[in-house]
């Protein structure tokens, strides 16, 4: 069909012949693994002396957490936890190194972390001075959640939607170990920034280079150069990113599940994010995160290629896209400006940030509400379509003059 396959292979060849594509690819894959692995290969020092490795500490915590897996965070578990915490000599200089802490408290550290988030306490002593029972905990959580809904200016309809979701949540929450999934979820934003950087580095001059090399004259005067080649280039660019995405999914999943374990796919998101009101489980959340990461890299690739053609420059798209992605990791949205926050949240590098992506902001769609993660693919596909049309228009209308 109009030599599309041949043109596609040649366009892919142009990309794969570039050392930059391979070198950047390897570096970014290594960085992705580093993001997931975190500090596990490092040693834990106290006063300059190695106490343990982070990997060993993770294994110990994992073992304790697995022992608690399946238990409801109810009155009985909260009592056990508080009793354990009362055994710790809080006046010791480093109470975390005491035998009492290691034996009695450490097994409950995950539960404790969730309780502290809900009770809004930072100091253990402060928490111990309060009566933490099941009713108080879940009531406090609900107050916190409702406060947050008001802060982010949810409409009554949105609040009703989330209240309904709250009704269907199992309470008390059931604890489960799922650190492999949590690690991937919390790495979402950095993984998205890294794939965006890869797309920007590899494709920023994919179209503009034809003008710089002056091959555009022979191309655009050929029979298939104005129409079919545009699509062959787009599909080649997308293919490169799709293959890279698969590699990234594989290495990050292998790293996370290999080190932390793959158990816990059905654990409630509330265990790590008590403020979340949805019914999504961590396994499904990871599936959605990877699906969004795939769409994010494709959208970015199309956007970069469009900029490359529109600006006839390889540096500007690289600067715009990579600068934007990195900036979004340090600039947060403002809860006071609902619309701006919501638009800002749809940037791929923001949406895959768990704190941003799981905000309760909703979009009404065909008589129902969609969450940010549900509505993003619709907006992204529309945006991709617009970028493709704009890029094609500039490509086909390019005039070679004044050289």
């Amino acid at each position, binding site marked *: 069909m*109009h030599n599309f396959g*041949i043109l596609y292979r040649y366009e892919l060849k142009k990309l794969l*012949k570039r050392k930059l594509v391979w070198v950047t690819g390897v570096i970014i894959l290594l960085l992705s693994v580093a993001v997931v692995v975190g500090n596990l290969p490092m040693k834990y020092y106290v006063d300059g002396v190695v106490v343990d490795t982070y990997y060993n500490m993770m294994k110990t915590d994992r073992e304790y957490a697995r022992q608690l897996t399946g238990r409801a965070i109810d009155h009985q578990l909260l009592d056990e936890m508080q009793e354990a915490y009362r055994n710790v000599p809080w006046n010791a200089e480093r109470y975390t190194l005491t035998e009492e802490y290691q034996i009695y408290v450490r097994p409950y550290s995950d539960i404790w972390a969730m309780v502290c988030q809900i009770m809004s306490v930072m100091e253990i002593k402060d928490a111990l001075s309060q009566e933490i029972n099941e009713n108080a905990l879940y009531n406090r959580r609900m107050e916190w959640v409702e406060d947050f809904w008001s802060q982010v200016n949810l409409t009554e309809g949105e609040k009703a939607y989330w209240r309904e979701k709250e009704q269907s949540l199992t309470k008390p929450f059931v604890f489960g170990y799922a650190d492999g999934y949590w690690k991937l979820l919390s790495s979402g934003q950095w993984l998205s920034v890294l794939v965006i950087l890869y797309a920007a580095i590899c494709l920023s001059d994919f179209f503009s280079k034809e003008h710089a*090399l002056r091959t555009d*004259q*022979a191309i655009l005067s050929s029979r298939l*150069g104005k129409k079919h080649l545009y699509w062959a280039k787009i599909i080649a660019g997308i293919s490169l990113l799709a293959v890279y995405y698969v590699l990234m999914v594989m290495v990050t999943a292998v790293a996370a599940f290999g080190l932390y374990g793959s158990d816990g796919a059905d654990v409630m998101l509330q265990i790590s994010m008590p403020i979340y009101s949805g019914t999504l489980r961590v396994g499904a959340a990871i599936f959605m995160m990877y699906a969004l990461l795939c769409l994010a890299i494709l959208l970015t690739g199309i956007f970069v290629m469009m900029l490359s053609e529109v600006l006839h420059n390889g540096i500007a798209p690289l600067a715009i896209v990579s600068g934007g992605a990195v900036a979004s990791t340090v600039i947060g949205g403002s809860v006071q400006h609902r619309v701006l926050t919501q638009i800002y949240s749809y940037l791929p590098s923001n949406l895959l940030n768990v704190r941003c992506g799981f905000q309760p902001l909703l979009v009404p769609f065909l008589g129902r509400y969609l969450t940010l993660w549900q509505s993003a693919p619709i907006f992204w596909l529309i945006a991709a379509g617009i970028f493709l049309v704009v890029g094609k228009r500039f490509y086909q209308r390019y*005039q070679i*003059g004044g050289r």
Partner: protein
Amino acid sequence: MELTIDRVSKQYKNKIAVDNISMHLDKGVYGLLGANGAGKTTLMRMICGILKPTRGTITLDGLDAETEEYRSRLGYLPQDFGYYPDFTGMDFLLYMAALKGMTRIDARQRAAELLDMVALSEARKKKIKTYSGGMKQRLGIAQALLNEPELLVLDEPTAGLDPKERVRFRNLIAEIGKESIVLLSTHIVSDIEHIADCVLMMKDGQLIYNGKWDETQGDLEAFYLKQFGEEKSYA
């Protein structure tokens, strides 16, 4: 087969690069002469459909220069011919053949023929970045001929060719001109004298001469120099 250029102009802000040119070209070799900035390249780019005229139309047997059908009958060697440094000569021709809509089998056969014709057979598997200027120019000529074009537009085709290659090239063009419309621009008047059936001369965007040139009219180079004052040609 007829190329019709009808009242074509190209204006850039305050400058008119091509000013209301009209002509009909049939089979044959047309030599386009003119000083730098006369508008030759602009006219050729418009004929190749990569630059839109401000006014006027360009058609080949009624097909507009913007159409895919028009481009399928066109061969073009740009003045500043670009190439992919990491492609081999053969790869480049096969890629261009695909762009011209040729089948894979035809492309391989024709590319091999043309590489032989432009004396690049031995270098066909070498990367273009290792080619000399003359080799690149010959590769450019080969790509323009891939689809056996009915309209062949060559912008400064002999630049970078050594004298022996130029003679070979002239013969090749003369042969192609028997079946196609060949429009070539050059500063080298002797090239035009040897192969062009018709001379076109441009000055300040206008066509100042359009017709055959024979010895009875005198020396073409002297006429050319007269038109362009003190500017020199390089024979």
